[in-house]
């Protein structure tokens, strides 16, 4: 055992998050592997171990007999300073191998505010932070996940991005790197080979140019044979795609400490602010039988006491009632509880409710997102007050007494009336509760409304929109807060505008932002997703030091013809569809769920991909 590392553990908070050795952790012989992959999650262990994608890719890579995949998480601040003080490098959880001894170092990009952690982890792992400074012996640094759809702000630090579903491409990429290392092929040649894979983007093979007004002019390949646009990967046989039925089971309690059953991927709703809804198209479902089978296997292999369904919109799963029934049947004798999260207002069926209750009473959450019907039409959130009211009345007469409602402020076209509508929705929830006879409802109503700040995201119809300036965000938040004052059993919470502003900058930013990121990291920005660690003034200074304007990135309405930093990434969704949706939004016109008929989002052009449009 590493003596230095041990000494550190004695004096840090929650040392158990650094020790590994969990049930089902894959400790394979490191030295004899053909290729080694460090799966890096740029956040703490507790967040990392709650993430389904990591469990999938960790399982897939470790199932390859010639490969070893080990986990690496971001240490907390106390550990970071100890490691630096004593010169202890960042190591993997499984074999405690320093990061730089891996062939491949891969990051998952779930959230813009974790970007500084990537720089820190590379640095702690003794890998040059900037890709251009890496030598032949350094690992190839790759990244994937939803934020990879706009890779540009990270282009200086990542050698290759994987765009889209990672299941297949991660194996192809690993194999190429293995062969190149074996045959002594140079780093640059290896990256070129990677660039020829579907879904792989190698930023050093592209060149950016700007117009005089600071907007992007073009991003083009620097050589022939490099694709003009990188098309995302799509798992077409979702039914049989890998399911992680024996993931490591953490000792310490993590955010989602349970089996997450991915019942489907993608969403057909078409909410116009929602990036996930656009990126994960088309919708793909697993059969009830397969799900029951993998649920059984997962329980047997992990001993978890709880299962939740995972997808963007679980109640849209076509056989949700049948699934709920079969699963609770299967799990009853095993004393495993089933909870059904992210249920949508408009499809919360009575019988599903009773099923959940039989096993476990999960918390009730809904996301109307906007306070008035007009604004919900703008964002294409197909939820009416009547739906919400009926569903809640139903829930309240079935034993629930607490509900959480999620909203956004700063949505395109929003007025003060829309904002005050948030308080009206809280009243509506309260009325639903009091409409249930006293002896039928549980005492102590709690309505919690929280509002995040709208962040424009790439590949959504709102990608051209501006975010509210911080003063305006605050004014709106206070106005809603005031409107909640007279409401007895309702509370209103809101997000920090500074974090949301940085999130917006990096969500829609271009290559130049990688300098800001580097500068912010130099200034000490780290773990920015954790409120107490976020230092707005340092970020502001980083922008100033780089001569770039926050306003230009976060608070500017983009021209529909402007070249966008992610135009060379092909998410399968066509720009004309997004424009059409944006224009409809401005007219408060809704678009149907594409299960009711194809809306021609662009995926129909890829053969055999979307079953909805055939």
């Amino acid at each position, binding site marked *: 055992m590493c003596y230095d590392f041990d000494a550190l553990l004695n004096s840090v908070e929650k040392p158990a998050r650094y020790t590994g*050795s969990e*049930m089902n952790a894959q400790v394979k012989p490191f030295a004899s592997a053909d290729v080694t992959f460090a799966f890096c999650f740029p956040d703490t262990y507790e967040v990392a171990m709650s993430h389904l994608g990591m469990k999938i890719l960790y399982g897939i890579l470790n199932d390859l007999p010639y490969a070893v995949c080990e986990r690496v998480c971001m240490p907390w601040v106390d550990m970071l300073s100890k490691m630096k003080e004593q010169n202890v490098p960042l190591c993997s959880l499984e074999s405690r191998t320093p990061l730089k001894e891996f062939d491949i170092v891969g990051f998952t990009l779930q959230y813009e505010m974790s970007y500084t952690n990537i720089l820190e982890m590379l640095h702690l792992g003794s890998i040059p932070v900037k890709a251009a400074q890496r030598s032949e012996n350094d690992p190839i640094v790759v990244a994937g996940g939803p934020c990879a759809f706009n890779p540009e702000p990270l282009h200086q630090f990542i050698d290759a991005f994987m765009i889209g579903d990672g299941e297949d491409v991660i194996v192809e990429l690993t194999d190429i790197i293995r062969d190149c290392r074996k045959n002594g092929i140079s780093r640059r040649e290896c990256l070129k080979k990677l660039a020829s894979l579907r879904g792989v983007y190698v930023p050093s093979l592209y060149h950016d140019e700007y117009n005089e007004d600071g907007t992007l002019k073009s991003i083009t390949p620097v050589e022939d044979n490099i694709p003009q646009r990188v098309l995302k990967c799509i798992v077409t046989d979702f039914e049989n795609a890998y399911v992680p039925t024996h993931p490591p089971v953490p*000792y310490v309690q993590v955010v989602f400490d349970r089996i997450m059953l991915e019942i489907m991927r993608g969403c057909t709703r078409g909410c116009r602010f929602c990036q996930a809804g656009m990126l994960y198209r088309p919708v793909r479902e697993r059969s009830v039988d397969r799900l029951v089978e993998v649920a059984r296997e997962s329980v047997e292999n992990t*001993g978890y006491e709880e299962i939740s369904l995972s997808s963007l919109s679980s109640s849209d799963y076509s056989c949700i009632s049948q699934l709920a029934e079969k699963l609770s049947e299967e799990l009853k004798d095993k004393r495993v509880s089933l909870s059904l999260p992210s249920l949508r207002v408009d499809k919360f069926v009575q019988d599903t409710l009773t099923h959940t209750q039989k096993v476990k009473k999960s918390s009730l959450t809904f996301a109307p997102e906007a306070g008035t019907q007009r604004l919900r039409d703008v964002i294409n959130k197909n939820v009416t007050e009547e739906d919400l009211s009926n569903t809640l009345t139903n829930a309240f007469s079935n034993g629930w007494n607490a509900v959480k409602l999620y909203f956004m402020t700063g949505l395109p076209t929003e007025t003060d009336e829309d904002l005050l509508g948030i308080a009206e929705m809280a009243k509506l929830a309260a009325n639903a509760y009091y409409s249930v006879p006293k002896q039928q409802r549980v005492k102590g109503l709690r309505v919690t409304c929280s509002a995040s700040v709208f962040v424009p995201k790439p590949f959504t119809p709102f990608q051209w929109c501006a975010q509210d300036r911080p003063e305006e965000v605050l004014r709106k938040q206070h106005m809603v807060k005031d409107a909640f004052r007279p409401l007895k059993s309702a509370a209103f919470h809101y997000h920090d505008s500074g974090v949301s502003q940085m999130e917006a900058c990096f969500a829609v930013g271009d290559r130049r932002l990688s300098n800001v990121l580097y500068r912010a990291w130099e200034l000490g920005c780290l773990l920015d997703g954790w409120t107490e660690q976020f230092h707005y003034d340092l970020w502001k200074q980083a922008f100033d030091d780089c001569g770039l304007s926050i306003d230009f990135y976060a608070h500017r309405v983009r021209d529909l013809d402007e070249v966008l930093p992610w135009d060379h990434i092909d998410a399968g969704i066509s720009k004309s569809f997004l424009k059409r949706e944006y224009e409809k939004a401005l007219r408060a016109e809704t678009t149907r769920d594409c299960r009711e008929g194809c809306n021609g989002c662009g995926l129909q052009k890829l053969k055999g991909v979307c079953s909805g449009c055939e």
Partner: protein
Amino acid sequence: MRMMVVFEKGAQLRFIGHLDLMRTMQRALRRTGLPIKYSNGFNPHIRLSFAVPLSVGVIGLRELMEVPVEDCVTADEFMQRMNAVLPDCLQIRCCKAVEDTFPALMSLVAGADYRITFVKTAEGKKAAQCFSGFMNLTEYVTNRRTKSGENPCDIRPFVLAGKCEEADDGYTIELHTAALKNGMLKPALWFDSLCEYAGCAEVPHLIYRTAILAKSQNGSLIPMEEL
């Protein structure tokens, strides 16, 4: 029927807290598919209990827990199935079926044996040299942290016997301790006190609990699993 289980909690897991260990054991039990008795009520759970919690940071070589099981489960089968699902650093060493009339393990705890190892640095040597002197004291009052704040506590009476041995790679102290009215000895506190007495700076060390003790018929303290 209950299964009395002796297990090892290895060095890698010494920072795993009591509740986390409990949850891990419950999950492992669930994985074995063995007929375990569950509690009644809305949220049925396995009524697993440990003889006495192990402090965070201490390695447990012969820890004890008990689990209510159906009569058909044999000790061998229990151990085999559990070890198949538990990680290498958390393994069952032996187990024994006891009747429901057998007292709760928790009520039998009368002491514990500890081992403390440390290296031969100058500071380490100093601590080892002062061991006999420290053992010859009739009392040693130090502050013990409890729920109600820091309290003065005489740690000497806990220690019934002890020895310190020197090997090529370091020193090993063995302590035979008794539980008293005010609880059990905190071995880390004892070692800190030794260092304080010896006037040395922090000495990096590892602490093992090597046995949990119960009173035998003749009144001596023996490992509980030997009752």
